[in-house]
């Protein structure tokens, strides 16, 4: 079902050619959950955006299974099986939750039976939004909107799921809901996940493998347990780098 | 007031110093054989009255061609320096300035909209360069008595006064003057309100509108609802056509008298259609007009060049050019200041009779030629032109 993601020397630069990512390598095994951690401005979100095709990639390669995807536009990458849940609000506020979910299956919208099944399934994932499927998404709380976005990101049965700080700003109850779902996705071994997370302990607890980024480049990586073991040293290293002026 | 005079004369001083400097700088070159440059400052693009601007340009080009073909003026070739005023006051004034300072024009011709002309007059005065008006109707143009400003053509109060007997004779009791909000439209409205006091049983209502509008439906609804006997439409051709078309659409039953002979322009019938039937227009042009030899030369050449007859305002423009020519010949110089001195005294054969300026200081008849009769003509069927139109009245 899902594929491995291989990233080689990825570079991303926004306007005026200031590079945020300066050559990042990464390997996310098929059906594994890879957490990406690092200090502010390390380029974690930019990495996911580069992979999703919503940030301008200026160099490097992205392989999803056997397919090169770095030259595809965002819509084509969705078609290739990439689903990105950005940190920024991405919900369609004037539409109902159901309409939002429906758009999550945009690239296979002609397959009506499949789409209805997926909408029903994903609408059922989170208790916090289940009673509100007919409400306008913009009227829900920020946390509920985030859950809508995650559910919407799963409707299309992605092969690669990119989650950018899915629990930022959520209440503890919702954080538990999100991690329950992430754990379930991992258990089902049906999708490759790249997870960017500020909450390092939560991330390490759920991840198979962990990459540490700093200043737009690879810092270190290893199996989650191993990284957990030397986390104090890694974080101390961040502290010394923070305030180095690298903008996020 | 005193302040004002001080300002203007200081500017004039500055300008004449500049002019003197330029003259000195230019005197080294072969003066006698130098071309004469005439400035043509006209509305050549929207929002200006570009249709009239086009007619002006055609007339000017033709005049220059004929004069140069006949050896120029005193052996000197004439060239035009053309500037677009876009029908805008500020653009017109700066175009004047450029025609004078960059092109070194001996005189400025082709000016059109009264509002623009009034601003251009200040520039002409500042630099002491003759400004020739022909179809800018604001009284103020000559009433201000600027030594540099001349007009061979009609003015509002004269036309308004000539309209009053027509309104009386036709038995109109309630007249609406539909005026565009420019010096031209409002100037006429004011002059007509003044002149109509001579006919106490005629009531007049002035309805003004924005000159650049593209929709007069609302205005015409209001006019129609007041059920006048006649509507005098005082605006340029596009709004004239629009007011007729949309006036009839919203049920206006009154006689429509256009401010001038716009219905003779080629797109009248194609834009107005049936609604144009019954429209009365005043004009200075009529087959009964005595066209001089000069006039015949102009009309024939114009028809040959452009395939249709010139409108009457183009006759006056032709006379404007000939006035400048006469002044250059009389003074033996194309220097603007010399022309300003010489022009008031020139006489020459115009297109429809001898031309000379009335020079009654303190009145509108200063540097003003006014020997024209006014004809009122009616269009009785679709497609009627000057020849088919019915002459309903003559005012002399």
């Amino acid at each position, binding site marked *: 079902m899902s594929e491995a993601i291989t990233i080689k020397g990825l570079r991303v630069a*926004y*306007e*005026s050619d200031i590079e945020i990512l300066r050559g990042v390598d990464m390997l996310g095994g098929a059906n594994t959950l890879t957490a990406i951690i690092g200090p502010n401005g390390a380029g974690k979100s930019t990495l996911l955006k580069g992979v*999703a*095709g*919503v940030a301008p990639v200026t160099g490097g390669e992205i392989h999803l299974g056997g397919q090169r995807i770095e030259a595809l*536009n*965002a*819509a*084509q990458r*969705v078609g290739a099986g990439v689903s*990105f*849940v*950005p940190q*920024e609000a*991405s*919900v*369609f*506020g*004037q*539409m109902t939750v159901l*309409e939002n979910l*429906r*758009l*999550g299956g*945009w*690239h296979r919208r002609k397959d009506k039976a499949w789409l209805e099944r997926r909408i029903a399934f994903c609408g059922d994932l989170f208790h916090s939004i289940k009673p509100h499927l007919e409400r306008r998404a913009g009227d829900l709380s920020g946390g509920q909107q985030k859950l809508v*976005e995650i559910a*919407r*990101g799963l409707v*299309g049965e992605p092969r690669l799921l990119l989650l950018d700080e899915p629990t930022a700003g959520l209440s503890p109850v919702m954080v538990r809901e999100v991690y329950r779902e992430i754990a379930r996705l991992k258990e089902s071994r049906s999708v490759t996940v790249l997870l960017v997370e500020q909450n390092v302990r939560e991330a390490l607890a759920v991840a198979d493998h962990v990459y540490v980024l700093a200043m737009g480049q690879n810092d270190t990586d290893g199996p989650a347990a191993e990284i957990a073991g030397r986390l104090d040293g890694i974080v101390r290293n961040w502290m010394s780098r923070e305030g180095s002026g690298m903008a996020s | 007031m005193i302040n004002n005079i001080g300002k203007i004369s200081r500017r004039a001083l500055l300008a004449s110093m500049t002019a003197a400097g330029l003259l000195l700088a230019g005197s080294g070159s072969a003066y006698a054989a130098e071309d004469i440059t005439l400035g043509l400052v006209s509305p050549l*693009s*929207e929002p200006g009255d*570009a*249709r009239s601007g*086009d007619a002006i340009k055609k007339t000017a080009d033709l005049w220059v061609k004929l004069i140069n073909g006949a050896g120029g003026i005193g052996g000197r070739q004439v060239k035009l320096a053309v500037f677009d005023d876009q029908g805008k006051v500020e653009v017109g004034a700066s175009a004047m300035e450029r025609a004078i300072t960059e092109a070194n024009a001996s005189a400025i011709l082709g000016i059109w909209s009264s509002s623009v002309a009034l601003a251009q007059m200040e520039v002409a005065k500042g630099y002491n360069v003759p400004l020739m008006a022909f179809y800018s109707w604001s009284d103020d143009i000559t009433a201000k008595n600027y030594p540099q400003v001349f007009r061979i053509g009609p003015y509002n109060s004269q036309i308004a006064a000539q309209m009053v007997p027509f309104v009386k004779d036709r038995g109109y009791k309630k007249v609406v003057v539909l005026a565009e*909000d420019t010096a031209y439209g409002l100037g006429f409205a004011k002059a007509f309100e003044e002149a109509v006091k001579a006919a106490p049983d005629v009531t007049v209502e002035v*309805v*003004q*509108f*924005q000159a*650049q*509008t*593209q*929709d007069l*439906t*609302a*205005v015409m*609804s*209001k006019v129609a*609802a007041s059920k006048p006997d006649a509507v005098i439409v005082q605006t340029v051709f596009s709004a004239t*056509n*629009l007011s007729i078309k949309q006036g009839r*659409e*919203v*049920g206006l039953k009154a006689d429509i008298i256009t401010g001038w002979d716009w219905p003779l322009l080629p*797109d009248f019938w*194609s*834009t107005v259609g049936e*609604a144009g039937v019954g429209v009365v227009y005043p004009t200075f042009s009529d087959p009964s007009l005595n066209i001089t030899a000069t006039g015949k030369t102009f009309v024939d050449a114009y028809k040959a060049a452009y395939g249709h007859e010139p409108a009457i305002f183009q006759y006056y423009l032709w006379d404007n050019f000939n006035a400048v020519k006469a002044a250059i010949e009389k003074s033996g110089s194309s220097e603007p200041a010399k022309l300003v001195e010489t022009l008031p005294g020139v006489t020459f054969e115009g297109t429809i009779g001898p031309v000379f300026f009335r020079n009654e200081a303190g009145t509108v008849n200063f540097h003003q030629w006014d020997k024209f009769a006014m004809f009122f003509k009616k269009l009785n069927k679709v497609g009627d032109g000057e020849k088919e139109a019915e002459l309903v009245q003559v005012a002399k």
Partner: protein
Amino acid sequence: MTQLFVQSLLLGLLQGGLYALLAVGLSLVFGILRVVNFAHGEFAMLGSFAAVFVVDMLGLPVWTGLIAAAVAGAAIAYATNILVLRPIYLSRMRQKGEYTIIATFLLSQFLIAAATLSFGTTYRKLPGLWDQNLAIFDYIYLSGNRIVAFVAAIAMIALLFFIVYRTDIGRAWRALTQNPLGAAVVGIDVNRYANLAFLASGAFAGLAAALLAPLMFVFPASGVIALVKAFIVVIIGGLGSIRGTLFAGLLLGVVEVMCTVYIDTGYTDAYGFALMIAVLLFRPQGLFGRTGRAV
């Protein structure tokens, strides 16, 4: 007095329907691409010339002129998107919005000049589908063409409503309008739907101009006025809101006519600006716009 009131109200509504049709494409394109298209009026102007060409020069029936206007408007809008705007909004430069304004403004000037050169400054008239001045009960006076234009305008806006709220194209447009990032992550191809929006925008502008032409005239600078009216409408209605555009168009039509008739005939165009300024002061997002759009 009442006759004038009823007549004015009706004229205002009829006029307003056309304002809405003119503006709806501008609003649609802004919503989707955040592009303020200064050449929108020229799409309309070229549409009306296309209609004149087909009807007057080729002698085809009047209704073909409406189709020609829509097709011409759509074609020029599509070309504008591909050739002028896409290179800007796909680039990585800063201040794309400002560049699109400058580019479309220059394009508008260019199109006016090109039309003037090609067609001359002559004013032209386009025959309408119902070229008759009606005197309804000798109480309401208006041209049959005005009724045709209004009915067509409302039908077209209804069609647009249908597209926007009932079809996948409309779903994509709404998604792009409400959240461009969200639209990108669910896989909506912004290029494709921007093209479709421009096609619709140009078609509606061209059609509006061809419906207006029998009531007014066709000439190269006519788009400038159309653009000003369209801007006022979208600002009053709220940029990106189709419902708002319809309402604001009707409101502008009625306010212009009513104020012209009952306040002063000398400021017809100024009433629209006054209304717009009032909206900007008291409800800057427009009557139907939303504040705090999430980015």
